[in-house]
């Protein structure tokens, strides 16, 4: 438990920091009758976290300044509808970080180590994603986004590390509402999310990790690989969903309605539904800022048929997701596999629409179809996540 080494939700110190924030914000609301503007109070608390607890405070501030300057300059000087250049400029830090991370350690020079240290900033990807959505959504807007609004949105401590990915307009509406949002209803909501988040992350995920996952003996058998596959999936779900719930709960306590990230994903019947239930905010982000623009671009070029364009856009989007996770083969293959699932499902829906009948299940009982679909989807996801885990290659 040290200063400058506290990533969100990784130590007791971070929870103490968040509780202090809530107490301070409530104090300002009731004692000082909200005389200090909520957005300034939030910026001060965020800055206190970065300055006192965050691993690389100056690196993070540098990144925020780069992203703010880049997005402001692009809005001012770049008037084209083509989004490739803005995407490249804004995602440059991710590209540098990913490229440097694959250079083998044997070739590391002092310069390379320094370069790696500069770009490896916790939360970098999510911050860049937020700024890309902010730029695309607001680039035609006449109003200039102030630095304080930009700072509050990008560096909001509970969601800094791994989301959920919020949108600027929604986030800023809550910030504008200020202390009025810090009411009993929100506190109750926050409490429920907190309890569930603690149960998921610190009890269930930890128990799975401690008593099952690390005790599996790798004898190379099929049974071992299957056991690892299902255990890892459950561990990942409870850890990540728990983390997201904790982030949402502290957002609620501060009057901010962070969108939900997980909603019973193992009951999804197809890939499309799965991405509405598993890491939903990333799924929505990829849909809005990658799938739709790629599909629109292919349509403008009148490239082949609509179904082919959709499938190409799906494959490219999920492959990109794989590259974002890392340039290692297992991440890329896992992303492509998720893309393949979506393409197969998309083609199945297309065929059903064209023939006006279910081409796979025929006249089977809908309840039975649902059970089989859930089973297939769960196992397909387990396999893709297993590839993602890097256990196979």
């Amino acid at each position, binding site marked *: 438990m040290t200063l400058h080494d506290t990533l969100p939700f990784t130590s007791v110190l971070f929870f103490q920091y968040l509780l202090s924030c809530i107490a301070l914000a409530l104090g300002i609301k009731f004692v000082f009758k909200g005389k200090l503007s909520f957005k300034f109070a939030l910026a001060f608390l965020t800055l206190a976290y970065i300055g006192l607890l965050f691993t690389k405070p100056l690196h993070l501030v540098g990144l925020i300044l780069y992203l703010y300057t880049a997005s402001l300059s692009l809005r001012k000087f770049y008037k084209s509808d083509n989004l490739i250049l803005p995407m490249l400029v804004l995602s440059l830090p991710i590209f540098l970080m990913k490229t440097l991370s694959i250079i083998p350690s044997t070739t590391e020079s002092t310069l390379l180590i320094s370069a790696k240290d500069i770009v*490896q900033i916790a939360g970098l990807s999510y911050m860049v994603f937020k700024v890309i959505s902010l730029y695309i959504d607001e680039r035609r807007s006449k109003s200039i986004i102030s630095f304080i609004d930009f700072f509050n949105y990008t560096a909001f401590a509970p969601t800094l590390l791994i989301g959920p990915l919020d949108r600027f307009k929604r986030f800023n509406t809550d910030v504008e509402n200020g202390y009025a949002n810090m009411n009993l209803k929100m506190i109750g909501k926050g409490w429920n999310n907190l309890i569930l988040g603690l149960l998921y992350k610190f*009890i269930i995920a930890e128990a799975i990790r401690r008593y099952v996952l690390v005790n599996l003996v790798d004898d190379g058998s099929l049974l071992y690989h299957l056991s690892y596959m299902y255990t890892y999936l459950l561990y990942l779900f409870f850890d990540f969903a728990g983390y997201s719930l904790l982030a949402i709960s502290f957002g609620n306590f501060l009057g901010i309605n962070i969108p939900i990230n997980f909603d019973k994903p193992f009951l999804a019947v197809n890939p499309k539904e799965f991405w509405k239930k598993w890491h939903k905010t990333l799924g929505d982000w990829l849909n809005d800022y990658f799938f739709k623009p790629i599909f629109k671009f292919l349509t403008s070029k009148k490239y082949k048929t609509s179904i082919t364009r959709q499938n190409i856009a799906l494959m490219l989007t999920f492959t990109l997701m794989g590259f974002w996770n890392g340039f290692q083969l297992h991440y890329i293959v896992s992303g492509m596999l998720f893309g393949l699932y979506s393409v197969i499902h998309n083609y199945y829906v297309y065929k059903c629409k064209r023939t006006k009948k279910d081409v796979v299940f025929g006249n089977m009982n809908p309840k039975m179809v649902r059970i089989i679909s859930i089973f297939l989807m769960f196992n397909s996801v387990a396999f893709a996540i297993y590839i993602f885990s890097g256990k196979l290659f």
Partner: protein
Amino acid sequence: MGTTKKIIQNTLIYFLLIIGYVYLYVININTVLNPSQEEVVKSKIDFVYQQF
């Protein structure tokens, strides 16, 4: 029915949270069950999700 379901659900959540906390963080159950066994250093699951 809705309220009953909610009460049962909340009771279960709090029960699991308290039992889990005691089991995982207060008592080290492994040392209670096997006092003579040496502590084995477990491999760390180092990648959970995207941090950078």
